[in-house]
């Protein structure tokens, strides 16, 4: 079974600085998808970034980028120029590319605080 581990329960960053959130996963599959979701206090899970395992190029979305290391099974999220609105819970998630189900497997999350 696949597992996702986020080893940092809480992180803090100064506004305008850069922070990196860690995520590792365990799988025997070669084809899969990885995601970072943000969950603010409103509870709404918002997709931050998505990575297809077959793509070697790291995904980027504006201030958000990932460092995808397939051999190491690592998928970290870098937030540049941190803003107060970035404060939230961040969840790393895995989804198999095989089978018909496609449910997400989540890590325990990292709570990010942004200091003004």
């Amino acid at each position: 079974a696949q597992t996702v581990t986020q080893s940092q329960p809480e992180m803090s960053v100064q506004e305008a600085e850069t922070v990196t959130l860690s995520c590792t996963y365990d799988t025997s599959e070669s084809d899969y998808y990885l995601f970072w979701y943000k969950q603010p206090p409103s509870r709404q899970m918002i997709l931050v970034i998505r990575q297809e395992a077959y793509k070697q190029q790291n995904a980027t979305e504006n201030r958000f980028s990932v460092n995808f290391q397939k051999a190491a099974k690592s998928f970290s999220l870098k937030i540049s120029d941190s803003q107060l609105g970035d404060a939230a819970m961040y969840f790393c998630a895995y989804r198999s590319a095989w089978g018909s189900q496609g449910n997400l497997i989540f890590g325990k999350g990292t709570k990010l605080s942004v200091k003004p």
Partner: protein
Amino acid sequence: GAGVSQSPSNKVTEKGKDVELRCDPISGHTALYWYRQSLGQGLEFLIYFQGNSAPDKSGLPSDRFSAERTGGSVSTLTIQRTQQEDSAVYLCASSLRPTTDTQYFGPGTRLTVL
């Protein structure tokens, strides 16, 4: 366009009562998922619907939990004889297709069982 909606936003019930939670997916999305988010267990998959096919119930924690999806659209998650350990946030998500497409989440229903 409209996102995934869920109702009610919050539900407080007494132990032993039945509750129904509703999810309205994004129009045209064939795949629908229910997840549970609790302090002790994190985010867990509960059940998956694809169109009008029989659901994948592999994540349901007990037979007190059931779900249906009418007309391939709206879904209802029912918890019978609620227990205190059922207290959690129940999240619904939908995607255009099950495996390749991004899942979009609703705001969730916070269930409190007294």
